[in-house]
Structures are given as structure tokens and as C-alpha cells.
């Protein structure tokens, strides 16, 4: 019985679902149908099983859950009739995929159907196998498919060939089993078999090097012959697509030829003539013709073609590029990207046209063109290209500005001939698209500005002017506020004037106005506001006349709902009010930011976080735990905050890992430590802890999310007894020795590793409450006369030991033993007492930029660890 002839209930169900006026009505109908189907399923009703499954498929397409139908598919597949099997396989492909375990149950039915006497049933099984087979099924059923490849029926043969593709994709090891069969398929006449065979060859080449070699020898001739016949063939109505005989097959043949000819001069030579013939003969006024031309060009680019042929190919692309059809222009742009590698001069000739495509209204074309343009930029054309792009930035779509500005920034960074130009271009981008650029971009800009000593005045004035017109661009505002904080005095006195500039008149109060505006602007976020506060603090020292006004502004923020801002304003207020004698040194202009470190850092972790709220989540090693009360725990953050009670990490202040936070605050590391004792006391007063040794960490605490107010410290101390120890440490001035807590060694230290150039010592300590764990402090000493950079220590332990390796104190190891790196390891020996500790070491570092690697094994651990 046919469940789909008119009057049956599938049709009725679709009708009643379509008649529903609201979603609720539809759900009700579906619910009723599903209930009926479930009932039929539980009664094991076999008469209407395939009708029910067909309904379920429709319901599935509407997006309702239909998992209860999965077993019904399997039952239908196992039944004997073709109509039942057909619906069963259809349901199988629709409702299940290769990852479901139910699928394993169908392997046996598939095997039987692949061996069936009815060719239509074999066809159904092959189709299902080709669409959803998993790796296990591929292994189990490959012999059947191999046998069916030899079938005489072209319908079965082509399906078997496509199934083989799926099998080879799932299990590339099986590629060799299909090689000979694939070559034989190319001798067929039937186009369906040919196209499947050619595609199988392509996949075999991708899956196995051996298959590629074999096919190179055996099927070049065949594929060239087929393509030649096709391209010379007279009108063939069955395969004709707007005047071209079977473009699909031609394209697949060209693709196979590309793979076979790639990197192989002999095969390429064999194809040259035919490729030339195809690319000149095809008419390019129809899509089907262009599709072949496009594939042909790609093949010419991909093989070892003659130079004449390559010129021909690039000319075709040039023609494509000036085509009126957007599709053709799109593929031309796509292909020109590949052509750059072959002949970049030829592509450069089309630069003007490509630039026009960047401005196209179609996002797909714009995106391609922008990619292409960024590949075409070089030192000679960068200025003119950037001018064009930045001009376009002003008028481009909102949703394109992000892509465009980030491309412009990366190009400007890569090719900028001088810093002045770089800063100019970046300011233009920021004023146009400051809301779209990523944080790294403006961070990078600040680093560059800070390093351009002679441009400070120029930059701050340019930013002042830009701010007047584009105060809604967040990142422009941030950079402007930062620069005004640092170089505000140069804005007022026109310091560091360049020849090209015209002096501007800005008063001190104008400057404060600007920062005040940034602080209070409705669109400013916490980061901007925090930066504005810092700038104000700095200005209060630079412009004593405005000090009172700044104090007022800062005071207003005391009531901010944002904890960060509230805290900052209270702290800054206290500095402005009570500590005149140290204020100027505290807010001195910051030293140059280390460009090299910044770049390194940026490449190492694409996430560099900057001041404000985000600093409490500073990502240094990625693992940052932010506790609800605002205490941030940064396991390896170089920014060590002694007030950060929850952080029991040792301070790892080293010049190379300075957090930019210090720098941005501009207090510099060296300031407090050089200050006179009297100042120290005041500073300590500020912190109300009264311990000189903590002063070197003061700058960091000033901006961390930690409160520096004593009552907070105390409150928190009481909250958590485990923290109290650190407060004691603090007061005892232990901050000078990072890991002093573990100094009480129970076990003798050992020399774990020694070579001519490097010595590693291990010191041990155990915590009584956790006997399995041992804390190892590794101390590295460089015995050679050259400093080591990029020092990296790694350790491996047997399975019964757990190892936790914390970051080293530094990654530069000075020469001749004048400095050391320490690194803390925690090992947990689960077989304590049964097996001793053992460890393998691997130390990588660079000497004069040359990579070095040392390895060793430690087996002399003291007993009992």
C-alpha cells in the first residue's frame, strides 16, 4: 500500500498543520500526532509503520523532537519490501547521524541489503552508507563496496564509487584498496560513473601519497583524453549546459589534473596543450563557461605550467575582474590572491580596480578585495593605498568598519616608514572608527607614542584637536586622555613643536575640561573613566593652579557606584590632599614603555589587559580567579600586590615582565624606593600598615582592585584566618624574600642537573598536613659567559606522580652565575614510601638568539619524598 497516495493521512496531517493559524495551534496538532505515533510504536503496529515514520520526518523538519522514531527506522530497514526500506533509509539519514550508537545496529541490515538481488535495494543501502557511514561501518562494509564497484549496472557503480569516497575520508588507510578500481572507472563511458570516479581519484590522492604516485602514473592519460573529448564534443543534449557539454565533469577533471600535476613537471607538461586549448576555446558569456575557465585558471596556477600559459591565466582573471557580474568579480578576486604567489607584478597592475572593489556595496566582494589589497601593500604604495582606505573608512558601512579598520591598522603597523606617519594614520583611524578597533591596537599605539620622544608634544596636540571633533570614539578618547595625563604640559606650552605644526592656544583649564568631559561623557565605560581619573591625578601635579578644581572632580567620583572608580577617587583624593611632597614624584611622567617586551607579550598572549576594571582580571597565564569580594587572584601575575591577601604567590618583579599597569599609572617602579625616609612614612601612613619593605609594591597596589584602606585590610583579615599569615608576613617585611615561607627545609638540597653551562639545584619542603606533596624550589644558575634568554624549564614525571609547575621568576638568566632564576614545583607522590620520586628535565633557552636544549634525568632525590 502506498502511504502517500491522496487521501492518506500524511497528506491530511500536513494539511492540518498548514491550516494552523498560530504556533500554539500547530504545537497542539503536532502533539496529537506524536501521541498517536507513540501509541502505534508501543503497540508495535507494522501496517502503518512507514506512514508514521514519514509523518515523523515531516514533524522533524518543523523542528520538533522525534527521537522516539529512531528504532522504527531500523525496523523498517529490516523489513523486506522496497517501500518500507525506502522510508526506513530516508528516516535513518534524516533522524540519525554517524555519531549515534543506534547506528551500529543497522550495520548488519546494510550488509544484507548491499548483497541483495534487487538493484534498487542495493542503491538504497549504498545511498545511506554514503551519507552517514561512520569509521567503524566503513571498515565493516568496505569489502561489499569494493565488490559493488565491479558491478555492471552504472547506477550501482557510481553510488559505490561515491561510497568509497566517504569510506576513504573516514578511514584514509583504506585508500590503497580502491586504487585499481578507481582507475578502471575512468575507462567508462557513463558520465555519472565518470564523475564519481574522478572524484574518487581526487580523494584518494588527498588521502595517501602512495595513491597519488600510482594515479599519476596511471590516470593522467585517461583524464586528459576525457577532457579533450568533452571539450571537442559536438552538441550533446543530455549533458548540455548553455552550450557546454557537462561542465561539471570538466571541472572535476581539471581539479584532478591540478592535483596530479602539482609539483610534477612531466605530468604538467602533458597537460599544457589541453589547458591552453580549453582556456582559449571556452566562451565566457555564460556562467557554465566561466566556471570552467575559473577552474582552468586555478589548475594553471597549481601545476608547473609554462610561463605563456600563466600569462594567459592572469589575463583571464583581468577580464573577470572587469566583468559586470558580481559573481565573476568575486571569483577573480579570490583567484588573484593565489596568483600573487605566481606573479605579483601582474596582480599589482589591477590594484586600482581591486581598490574599487573594496568600496563595493556587496559585503562578500568587499571582504575578498580587502584581503587581496592587504597582500598587495608594499613599501612603495603603502602611503597612497592607506590614504584611499582611510578616506573610505569615513563613508563605509557601519558593519564594515570593524574589518576595515583592523586591516588598516595591521598594514600601518607593518609598513609604516616612520613614527610620525604611523601616529598620524592611527589617529585618523581612531577618529573615524575608534569604537570598532580592538584593544591591542590602541595599546600598541600608546607604546609607540611613549617611545617617540620627539613627537610627544605633536601627538598630544593632535589628539586634543581630534578629541574636539570625535569625542564619541571610545578608543580615541582613551589614547587622548592617556597622552594628556602624560604630556599635558606640552599641550599648554606648545612644547616639542614640529615645523609642520601651527601653534595652538590651550589653557590649563581647557585641558582639565577635556579630561573632565571624558570622565563624564555618557558613553565612557569604566576603563575610560579610570584612565581619566589617573590623568586628572597627573594633571593636578602638572598644573598646580587647577589642583583645587581637579580635587573637586575627583571628589565627585567618590560616590560612584563602580567600586573601582570609587576606590580610585578616594585614594587619589587622599594623595592630592595630604601628600604634596611626594605627589610630584609619584605622578612623574612614566618611563618609555618597552616596545620589544610589548610586542613579545602581544604575540605570546593575544590578550593583554590594560588598566581600569579589567586589571583585576589581568591575564598573564590565563588562569585567573576572581573572587566575589573583588579580591583578584592571579596565580602567576607579575603584578604582585602585597595587599592582595588571597594571593600567596611570591612577588616576581622583574623588569621584563613589568605589568603595564605600573607604566600606565606612570609611577614607575623606582619612585618610592628612592624616596627619602620621611616620604616613606607618609606613604606608609597612606597604607596604614607601616612597613617599609612593602613600598616597592606600592604602585601596583594603587591601581589594583584591592582596597588600600586599613580598615578594609583588617576586615578581610578577620574574615579569613588563612590570610592572616600573609599580613604578618607583610608586617615582618618578608616581601623581600619571595618564598621565605618554604625556607625551613626538612630535606637536604640536591644538585639535580649540572652541565658545563647550567646548574640546577632543588630545595625541598613538605607541609605536614599533606605528606604526599613536596614543594621543590628549583634554582637555575648560568655558568657560561653569555646570558640566556627565553629560558624555559620543563619537567616530566612518571604516572604515579602529579606535577604542578609554576612559572619561573624570570625568563632571562644572567651570565657567570651573577643571578639565578627560581621556579616552584609541587609534586604529589601517590606511591609515597613505595616508589621514590623521579623526574626528567628539559631546559630550552636562547644564547645569542640561538636555540639551545638540554635534557637530564633526576634520580638522586632524597629518600622519603
Amino acid at each position: 500500500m502506498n502511504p502517500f497516495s491522496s487521501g492518506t493521512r500524511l497528506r491530511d496531517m500536513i494539511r492540518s498543520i498548514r491550516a494552523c493559524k498560530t504556533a500554539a495551534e500547530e504545537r497542539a496538532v503536532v502533539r496529537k500526532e506524536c501521541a498517536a505515533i507513540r501509541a502505534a510504536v508501543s503497540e508495535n503496529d507494522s501496517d502503518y509503520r512507514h506512514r508514521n515514520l514519514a509523518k515523523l520526518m515531516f514533524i522533524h523538519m518543523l523542528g520538533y523532537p522525534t527521537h522516539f522514531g529512531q528504532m522504527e527506522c531500523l525496523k523498517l530497514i529490516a523489513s523486506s519490501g522496497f517501500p518500507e526500506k525506502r522510508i526506513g533509509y530516508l528516516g535513518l539519514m534524516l533522524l540519525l547521524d554517524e555519531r549515534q550508537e543506534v547506528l551500529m545496529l543497522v550495520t548488519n541490515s546494510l550488509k544484507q541489503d548491499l548483497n541483495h538481488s534487487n538493484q534498487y535495494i542495493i542503491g538504497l543501502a549504498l545511498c545511506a552508507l554514503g551519507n552517514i557511514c561512520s569509521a567503524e561501518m566503513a571498515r565493516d562494509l568496505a569489502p561489499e563496496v569494493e565488490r559493488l564497484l565491479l558491478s555492471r549496472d552504472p547506477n550501482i557503480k557510481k553510488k559505490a564509487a561515491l561510497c568509497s569516497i566517504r569510506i576513504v575520508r573516514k578511514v584514509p588507510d583504506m585508500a590503497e584498496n580502491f586504487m585499481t578500481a578507481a582507475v578502471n572507472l575512468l575507462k567508462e563511458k557513463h558520465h555519472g560513473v565518470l564523475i564519481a570516479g574522478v572524484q574518487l581519484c581526487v580523494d584518494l590522492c588527498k588521502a595517501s601519497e602512495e595513491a597519488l604516485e600510482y594515479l599519476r602514473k596511471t590516470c593522467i592519460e585517461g583524464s586528459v583524453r576525457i577532457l579533450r573529448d568533452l571539450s571537442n564534443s559536438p552538441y550533446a543534449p543530455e549533458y548540455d549546459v548553455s552550450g557546454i557539454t557537462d561542465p561539471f565533469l570538466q571541472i572535476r577533471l581539471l581539479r584532478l589534473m591540478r592535483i596530479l600535476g602539482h609539483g610534477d613537471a612531466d605530468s604538467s607538461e602533458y597537460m599544457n596543450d589541453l589547458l591552453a586549448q580549453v582556456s582559449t576555446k571556452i566562451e565566457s558569456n555564460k556562467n557554465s563557461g566561466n566556471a570552467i575557465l575559473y577552474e582552468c585558471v586555478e589548475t594553471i596556477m597549481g601545476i608547473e605550467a609554462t610561463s605563456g600559459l600563466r600569462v594567459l591565466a592572469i589575463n583571464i582573471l583581468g577580464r573577470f575582474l572587469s566583468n559586470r557580474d558580481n559573481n565573476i568579480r568575486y571569483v577573480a578576486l579570490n583567484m588573484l590572491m593565489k596568483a600573487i604567489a605566481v606573479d605579483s607584478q601582474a596582480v599589482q597592475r589591477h590594484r586600482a580596480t581591486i581598490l574599487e572593489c573594496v568600496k563595493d556595496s556587496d559585503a562578500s566582494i568587499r571582504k575578498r578585495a580587502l584581503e587581496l589589497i592587504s597582500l598587495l601593500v608594499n613599501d612603495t604604495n603603502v602611503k597612497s593605498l592607506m590614504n584611499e582606505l582611510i578616506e573610505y573608512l569615513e563613508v563605509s558601512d557601519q558593519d564594515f568598519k570593524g574589518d576595515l579598520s583592523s586591516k588598516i591598522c595591521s598594514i600601518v603597523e607593518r609598513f609604516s616608514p616612520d613614527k610620525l606617519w604611523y601616529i598620524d594614520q592611527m589617529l585618523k583611524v581612531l577618529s573615524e572608527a575608534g569604537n570598532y578597533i580592538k584593544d591591542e591596537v590602541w595599546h600598541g599605539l600608546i607604546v609607540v607614542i611613549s617611545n617617540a620622544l620627539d613627537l610627544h608634544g605633536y601627538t598630544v596636540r593632535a589628539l586634543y584637536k581630534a578629541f574636539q571633533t570625535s569625542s564619541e570614539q571610545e578608543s580615541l578618547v582613551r589614547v587622548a586622555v592617556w597622552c594628556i595625563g602624560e604630556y599635558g604640559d606640552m599641550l599648554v606650552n606648545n612644547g616639542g613643536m614640529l615645523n609642520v605644526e601651527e601653534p595652538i592656544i590651550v589653557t590649563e583649564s581647557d585641558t582639565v575640561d577635556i579630561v573632565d568631559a571624558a570622565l563624564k561623557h555618557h558613553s565612557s565605560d569604566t576603563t575610560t573613566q579610570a584612565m581619566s581619573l589617573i590623568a586628572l591625578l597627573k594633571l593636578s601635579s602638572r598644573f598646580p593652579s587647577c589642583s583645587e578644581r581637579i580635587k573637586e572632580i575627583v571628589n565627585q567620583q567618590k560616590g560612584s557606584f563602580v567600586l573601582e572608580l570609587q576606590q580610585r577617587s578616594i585614594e587619589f583624593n587622599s594623595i592630592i590632599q595630604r601628600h604634596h611632597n611626594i605627589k610630584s614624584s609619584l605622578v612623574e611622567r612614566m618611563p618609555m614603555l618597552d616596545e620589544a617586551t610589548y610586542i613579545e607579550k602581544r604575540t605570546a598572549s593575544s590578550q593583554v589587559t590594560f588598566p581600569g576594571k579589567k586589571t583585576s582580571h589581568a591575564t598573564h597565564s590565563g588562569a585567573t580567579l576572581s573572587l566575589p569580594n573583588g579580591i583578584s587572584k592571579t596565580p602567576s601575575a607579575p603584578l604582585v600586590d602585597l595587599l592582595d591577601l588571597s594571593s600567596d604567590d611570591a612577588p616576581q618583579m622583574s623588569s621584563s615582565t613589568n605589568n603595564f599597569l605600573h607604566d600606565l599609572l606612570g609611577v614607575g617602579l623606582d619612585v618610592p624606593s628612592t624616596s627619602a625616609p620621611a616620604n616613606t612614612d607618609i606613604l606608609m601612613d597612606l597604607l596604614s600598615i607601616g612597613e617599609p619593605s612593602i613600598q616597592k609594591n606600592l604602585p601596583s597596589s594603587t591601581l589594583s582592585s584591592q582596597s588600600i584602606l586599613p580598615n578594609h585590610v583588617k576586615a578581610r583579615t578577620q574574615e579569613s584566618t588563612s590570610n592572616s599569615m600573609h599580613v604578618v608576613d607583610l608586617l615582618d617585611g618578608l616581601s623581600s624574600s619571595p618564598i621565605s615561607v618554604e625556607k625551613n627545609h626538612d630535606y637536604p638540597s640536591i644538585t639535580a642537573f649540572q652541565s658545563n653551562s647550567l646548574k640546577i639545584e632543588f630545595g625541598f619542603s613538605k607541609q605536614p598536613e599533606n605528606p604526599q606533596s613536596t614543594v621543590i624550589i628549583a634554582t637555575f644558575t648560568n655558568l657560561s659567559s653569555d646570558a640566556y634568554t627565553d629560558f624555559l624549564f620543563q619537567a616530566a614525571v612518571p604516572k604515579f606522580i602529579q606535577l604542578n609547575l609554576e612559572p619561573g621568576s624570570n625568563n632571562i638568566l644572567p651570565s657567570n652565575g651573577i643571578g639565578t632564576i627560581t621556579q616552584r614545583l609541587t609534586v604529589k607522590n601517590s606511591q609515597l614510601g613505595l616508589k621514590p620520586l623521579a623526574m626528567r628535565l628539559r631546559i630550552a633557552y636562547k644564547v645569542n638568539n640561538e636555540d639551545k636544549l638540554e635534557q637530564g634525568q633526576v634520580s638522586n632525590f632524597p629518600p622519603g619524598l
Partner: protein
Amino acid sequence: MIRFILLQNRQGKTRLAKYYVPFEESEKHKVEYEVHRLVVNRDPKFTNFVEFRTHKVIYRRYAGLFFSMCVDITDNELAYLECIHLFVEILDHFFSNVCELDLVFNFHKVYLILDEFILAGELQETSKKAIIERMGELEKQE
């Protein structure tokens, strides 16, 4: 290779969805929604190609129906455009002047045609005549 084929109307109702790579059920709905949003508002003069995640969607609109194929980024866009057209011609021939309702009520047949046209994400048959004949034979088996 073709990763999936979608047939959607302008309202975003999916009339046919064929996946050649596995997706979670929820992911399928998301993909269908996203693809519809990508293609539905594009100007007819624009390219028929849109980048979608790490792949690209080749789509073509016939009256109120969007035929979309998601293919590998290195695949020949123009060829798949032609491929969509061939599929539509086959449907048109089979249902003699196909309309959306044919596809709704005979969705199982549409799947059957597709399975004769594309298998394992690759083209199986390029002759309209061969597929129509094959469909006739299969109908006789019912």
C-alpha cells in the same frame, strides 16, 4: 565537498535540509537560522556567495525559495551555482512546474531526487534525463 543543502522560503521555514557532515540537532537549527538571515536580505545584484563560519554558502533564489549549499572554501563557486540550477530544473521537470507546495507535500520525493543527484556530498549524476528516468523506475517499485 558539499557540507549541507538547505531549501528555505523567505519566512525562514526550512523545506529541505540535507546534512553530509554531522551536526547536533540544536546546531542544525542554528545553522538554518543563520543561513536564512545571511541570504534573505541580500540585494539581487550581489554575489551569490556568502562566507559562513569557515565555509561558504552558495545560494540562489527562485521565486520565494532559497536554495543554499554550504561548500568548502576552496570549492568552485560558479560550478555549485550551476549545480543548484540543475537541481531546480530537475525538480521543475519532475513536478512539472514546481511550486513550494509540491515540495511541502512531497518532501520525501524531494529527498529521493536529491539522493539520486548528490551522494556523500559529491555530485552523482549530471544528466537531468537520467535522474528523471531513474525516479520513474523507483516510483514503479512502490
